[in-house]
């Protein structure tokens, strides 16, 4: 096992170094990059911005590969939510006799919850293996590593769009359409992405460090599916547990989606929602912190 002893990091120092003989293409003011042990990374976020094109192209690559490699790409994005929706509706509504929210058809309610859930699980699953899958890049080229797991968001969003189209078809079938609250969906979509990113980054870093961690991820996702209000409404959770239940960041996101998609038929539980948002923020901070902490050793580990 090889580990770096000192955590070192590069930093960029701006220096107006006028060059007397400058060949074409070389700017008059060049930045001098200083690589040194233990130097604080003051320019990480700026670096992230400079590499935005790489982010776009990696995301585009993942998307192109996903839908090129297999005709199954699109089919998978269709089949998975439909089957899950059927199973949940039969299981929780017909068998367990759980109520829907207000007048919304049960399957529509399930579907509205599955939208953010699948976004969450796709980001988590894809991001967690992204670094290992791109190990040849990581060990050969420098760029802020945060780009790689973040780029998986785009693929998840493409799947999200397909699932969303399905939901619209279903709503047309049930003649149950959202009202003005729909305009808040972008907000909840962003919240869903942020809620996914935190745990995803944490797990991604763990996955590089402990290569057998990937066996645990499907379990985490399966577990998450049942503890999150995907197949049922969070209103069935007893009132005294509701606040505790909202510690799960996905709860607030799913409730938000249902609120804006189901004409407010699901009542908003504000204390829980704020708690969920707090959980999202904490996870995001934790994920980024741990990712950044371990990032410097990725090239040595992969």
């Amino acid at each position, binding site marked *: 096992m090889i*580990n770096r002893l000192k955590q070192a990091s590069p930093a960029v120092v701006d220096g107006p170094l006028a060059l007397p003989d400058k060949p074409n293409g070389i700017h008059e003011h060049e930045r001098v990059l200083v*690589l040194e042990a233990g130097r604080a990374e003051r320019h990480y976020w700026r670096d992230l911005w400079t590499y935005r094109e790489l982010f776009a192209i990696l995301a585009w690559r993942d998307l192109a590969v996903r839908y*090129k490699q297999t005709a199954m790409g699109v089919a998978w994005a269709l089949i998975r939510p439909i089957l899950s929706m059927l199973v949940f509706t039969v299981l929780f509504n017909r068998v367990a006799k759980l109520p829907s929210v207000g007048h919304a058809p049960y399957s529509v309610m399930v579907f509205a919850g599955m939208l953010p859930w699948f976004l969450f699980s796709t980001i988590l699953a894809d991001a967690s293996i992204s670094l290992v899958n791109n190990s040849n890049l990581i060990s050969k080229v420098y760029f802020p590593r945060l780009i790689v797991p973040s780029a998986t968001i785009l693929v998840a969003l493409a799947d999200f769009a397909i699932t969303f189209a399905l939901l619209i078809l279903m709503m047309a079938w049930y003649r149950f359409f959202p009202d003005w609250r729909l305009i808040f969906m972008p907000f909840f979509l962003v919240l869903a992405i942020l809620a996914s990113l935190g745990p995803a980054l944490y797990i991604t870093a763990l996955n590089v460090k402990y290569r057998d961690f990937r066996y645990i991820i499907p379990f985490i996702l399966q577990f998450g599916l049942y503890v999150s209000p995907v197949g049922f409404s969070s209103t069935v959770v007893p009132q005294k547990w509701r606040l505790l239940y909202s510690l799960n960041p996905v709860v607030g996101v799913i409730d938000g989606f249902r609120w804006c998609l189901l004409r407010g038929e699901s009542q908003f539980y504000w204390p829980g929602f704020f708690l969920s948002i707090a959980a999202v923020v904490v996870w995001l901070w934790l994920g980024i912190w741990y990712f950044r902490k371990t990032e410097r050793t990725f090239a040595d580990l992969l």
Partner: protein
Amino acid sequence: MKSDVVIRAEALGKKYLVGHDVQRERYTTLREVITRKVRRLARMGANGFRATMGRGHEVEEFWALKEIDFEIKRGEVVGIIGRNGAGKSTLLKVLSRITEPSEGRVSIKGRVASLLEVGTGFHPELTGRENIYLNGAILGMARAEIRRKFDEIVAFAEVERFLDTPVKRYSSGMHVRLAFSVAAHLEPEILIVDEVLAVGDAAFQEKCMGKMKGVAKTEGRSILFVSHNMMAIKQLCRRGIWLQSGEIRKTGPIDEVVEAYTVSVHDKLQSGIFSRHAVTGDGRVELVSYSVSNPNSNANLPLTTKEDMLFRINLRVKEDIRQSACGISIFNEFGVLMTSINTVELGTPFPQLAAGDATVCVRIRETVFLPGSYTASFWVMNPQGHIHAMAENSIAFELAQTPLYGTCQVDHQWGCVYSDVEFSVAPTAT
């Protein structure tokens, strides 16, 4: 920093911690960590707290680079040479920001791009066109920049007809050409080239060399070139840095550095003294020393495939041996027996050994072994197979890279032996 210096390394060092309990595994598994923790807890319970302090898992420092100082000026082409494990790759990794130094500092002026391995970041499912954009972005080119140079890149790579074919259907040659072409059209102030020219056909290698020379000369870019191919290094570079065990052994004009390096490799590997306890037998013969050389060349040319190989074994005969025989076995670096032959099987009479010093010469004509590291065993016996002296795997030698199959980077993936092959195709008569 002086204005014409683009890279300056000062007392650069890179340390790795090598753990002995987890051998060669760079990543750990959760299972390992948990079992280790549990075991430690158990030990703590049994022996009290002090037991945990003494015997943790041992960690040893390993300096991949130590006290490295150098400067590279604008437009300079510098060759970095050294044996495997000398720290060349680590140095390049530090310079390209993939890993950070543990000591000292490096100042870099301008954009660094590395051409580390062929097709890094190529995606097999994507087409040539898509991969140009992908690879360009990975190497740090802006989209607009790639678009501007697109035609040039394609023309240089000679892949016009296959632009919309997924690269998984490309031949390895096309793959390399495209990869190099993208990187060559990058406009970094500093280009790092690690052994990429080794692949691809001879004509394309020539073309790449020309391109790199031009880039350095007319555009004022600096190139750091790592290769085991001394011919290429000498052709391209003006200055050389020779790394040995993480330290700079010699820097200076490329010819001097390459010369010194070649001599050292030659000296170190191709001759030696048998250590006393490595030799077994009844003691009537003592094996003293050996050398392996290329008998066909008057100069100090390295051993290579298709050339003759001469083993000289110096031995001391304690008492006259009327009937004797000797044999040799050669193994490759994976311990595969390449050849084994002795004089009895050959049917050649072996002269009587008189007491005193003698040298046995074994000549292998037109070696077919591919470049790489080898070891040999040598023994002296009587015709019935009774061993007088035997040195097992004690002769180490190396066959240097030489143009084979139109490339200079033949390794074990090409098999064990060189064969003079010809492919042809003809319609089958029905």
